[in-house]
């Protein structure tokens, strides 16, 4: 869609101009009607399952809706949002969300890029290895959370705990000790979703032009120089895309944490999404829960906007 006014800093391409100047003939109208007919089913579905619930959610956030105290219900203005400012559990969940998102996204990009570069050359077994790396991504997050909790991290019986003991680090309650629990769920998320970054980077590396690398070789650039000055800048759009996608997903992560720790121990792994869920469906404070969810939505949108700006510049 074309924007008037502010959007005009982008110059119109010839085609866009042509479309705009085309006289609205009957055929064009028929075409447009046909387009809308084709779009209608998906628009209706989108409206019903996404747009309307979203509007209802935002509306609910301005009401007090307590299933357990129906007599309190009514319009609340912005009081749900004001309450958040003094809600220690909300502020703590915001902090956990920030750490969780930053750490998982950074690790995914770093490890995903490393793996993609390492497997970009030609060597026997490369395809098998690539397939193996992708496997975690196809598992359901709940299954991942439960498997890590039971098979890998259980003190004394889990594989990771066993290895930790074997190399002399000792047995730990990986998901029960507040100082380890957040690290553990970050590792779980990274393990599952690094394959996504790997996939994008592998595709991006395959599409890189060869000329700059040949030029670098002729100029006797070191591998590190080549990486920093050629590979990285060329991959920047791919990196930004991965960061955008993974941040949006990490911000609203739920199932794996829910299955692994339930937000515990205490509130050590309670991200904002989990707190909103518990407020709505365990405490039955639907209004405040909606306000928390709306806040999460605003944070996600704000971060995405920032990243998209970065991408446009890239």
């Amino acid at each position: 869609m074309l924007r008037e006014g502010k959007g005009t800093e982008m110059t119109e391409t010839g085609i866009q101009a042509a479309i705009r100047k085309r006289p609205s003939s009957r055929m064009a109208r028929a075409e447009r009607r046909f387009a809308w007919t084709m779009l209608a089913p998906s628009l209706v579905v989108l409206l019903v399952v996404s747009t309307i619930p979203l509007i209802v959610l935002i509306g609910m956030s301005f009401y007090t809706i307590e299933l357990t105290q129906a007599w309190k219900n009514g319009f609340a203005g912005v009081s749900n949002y004001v309450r958040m400012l003094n809600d220690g559990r909300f502020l703590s969940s915001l902090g956990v969300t920030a750490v969780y998102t930053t750490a998982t996204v950074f690790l995914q990009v770093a490890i995903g890029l490393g793996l993609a570069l390492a497997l970009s050359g030609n060597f026997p077994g490369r395809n098998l290895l690539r397939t193996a790396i992708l496997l975690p991504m196809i598992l359901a997050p709940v299954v991942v959370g439960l498997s890590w909790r039971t098979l890998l991290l259980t003190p004394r019986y889990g594989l990771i705990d066993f290895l930790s003991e074997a190399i002399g680090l000792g047995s730990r309650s990986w998901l029960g000790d507040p100082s380890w629990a957040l690290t553990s769920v970050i590792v779980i998320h990274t393990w599952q979703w690094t394959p996504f970054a790997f996939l994008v980077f592998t595709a991006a590396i395959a599409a890189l032009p060869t000329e700059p690398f040949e030029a670098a070789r002729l100029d006797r650039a070191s591998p590190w120089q080549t990486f920093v000055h050629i590979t990285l800048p060329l991959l920047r759009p791919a990196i930004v895309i991965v960061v955008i996608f993974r941040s949006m997903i990490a911000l609203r992560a739920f199932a794996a944490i829910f299955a692994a720790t339930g937000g515990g121990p205490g509130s050590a792994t309670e991200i904002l999404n989990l707190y909103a869920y518990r407020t709505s469906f365990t405490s039955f404070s639907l209004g405040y829960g909606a306000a928390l969810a709306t806040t999460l939505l605003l944070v996600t949108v704000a971060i995405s906007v920032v990243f998209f700006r970065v991408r446009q510049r890239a």
Partner: protein
Amino acid sequence: MTINRRDFLKAAGVTSGMVLLGDPMHGLRALAQSGAANDLGIYREANMNWDQLAGEKITVLLSPAHYFTKFRELTPQFTELTGIEVEFDVIPPKEMRDKAVLDFTAGTKLYATHTADPMFLPLYVANGWIDPIETYHSDASLTDRAWYDIDDVVPLWRAADSVNGDLYALPSEGEVTIHIYRRDLYEANGLAVPTTLAELRDTASALNGTQANLAGMAFRGFRGAGQNMYIWPSLFRSFGGEWFDANGNPQVNSAAGIDSLSYYVDMMNSFAPAGVENWNWPEIMEAFAGGNVAQYIDSNSTASIIENPANSSVAGNVGYQRWPLGPAGKRVTSIWNWALPINAQLPERQRKATWLYIQWLTSRPTQLRSAMYRETPEAVVRTGVNRLSLWASPEYRELVEFTPDYADVVLTSLREDTDADWRPRLPEWPNIGEVMALAIQSALVGQKTPEAALEEANQELRRILG
């Protein structure tokens, strides 16, 4: 999922066939399962018309548990008796509860009844979602009161299913928490069974680590209104704690609160297995069955698993006791039952049909038949029948005779060791339970001191109740 009559008869035939191949209690079970157990005459003795609502259809929401499997498989008898069709939806407890609440709030009338948490009944009543049982129980056309004999239903569970003195649901299966310990380890270490919580700590200390991988004690550590907030309230009350002061203000940050939480944290950190913060009763039970925990305080229902030699290395070496006395000189146990309420939004005929189903399920004959019923040869026995008369009857006692005094320990605990208000029974319970569960676990894992955790929780409770 519906189970038709033919499936049921087939299953009953298979199991009674197995029973006849040399099971010591076969006579009893054969009676309960074959001919006599399918006999509807015992229901027709009631002076009422069971089939007055023939043709109605109700849907029941259940959590998955062996006793509900037994009820489900006996339900064709109910359909034959009344002509009322019963369908079942089976989903795990937490999701089941959410779904029931959603059904109520949205008014979708999907479920005639569900296996409710008694602590949720005040919430249901405050919103007018369920009907008082007395409406149906006192209707002579729907209930033969003498035949049904409501006074025989365990009084404490009935009290737990009442709100402001009115009964709103009936217990289908229940439990009480007791002290479960390894008799062989106690003997080997020359220990006497503790009578106080302080002595309990001494035994935990004496047993901890006496064998490789042996923990001295375990309580539930998992965070949740039905997990750590199921056990800690018993400690709180037996330390003399009261939820509210004379003005109705919460006071969980009292000295009793702090001392009881410190006791819990100390016991868990000193003697419980690593990772106990995330343990609910199944994990404790499995560790005990595997010989890795010397004792625990939890539901009496775990006995049916830890006494099964196929699943447990400690079967036959287990002792059962009532809760030890707290510093306040009293024992306070935790109680639970799966309560069946009647959805008030249904049309009248369906509500009546629902009552007939609840009445049938909680009646003495069905409680006995389900206790005797084995859905598979290795099926677990019911340890929570709702009738005092059954707990007194030789045939049921024989079934749960894990030790000579098991049934008495359970029954005495149910009669003497707590009251229905050992947890705050208010519409706000879901919220209160969540706040307290978080406070208890924060103290357990050392995020906060017991004082700080309870101080914060108390403020939060004031806000919720304010």
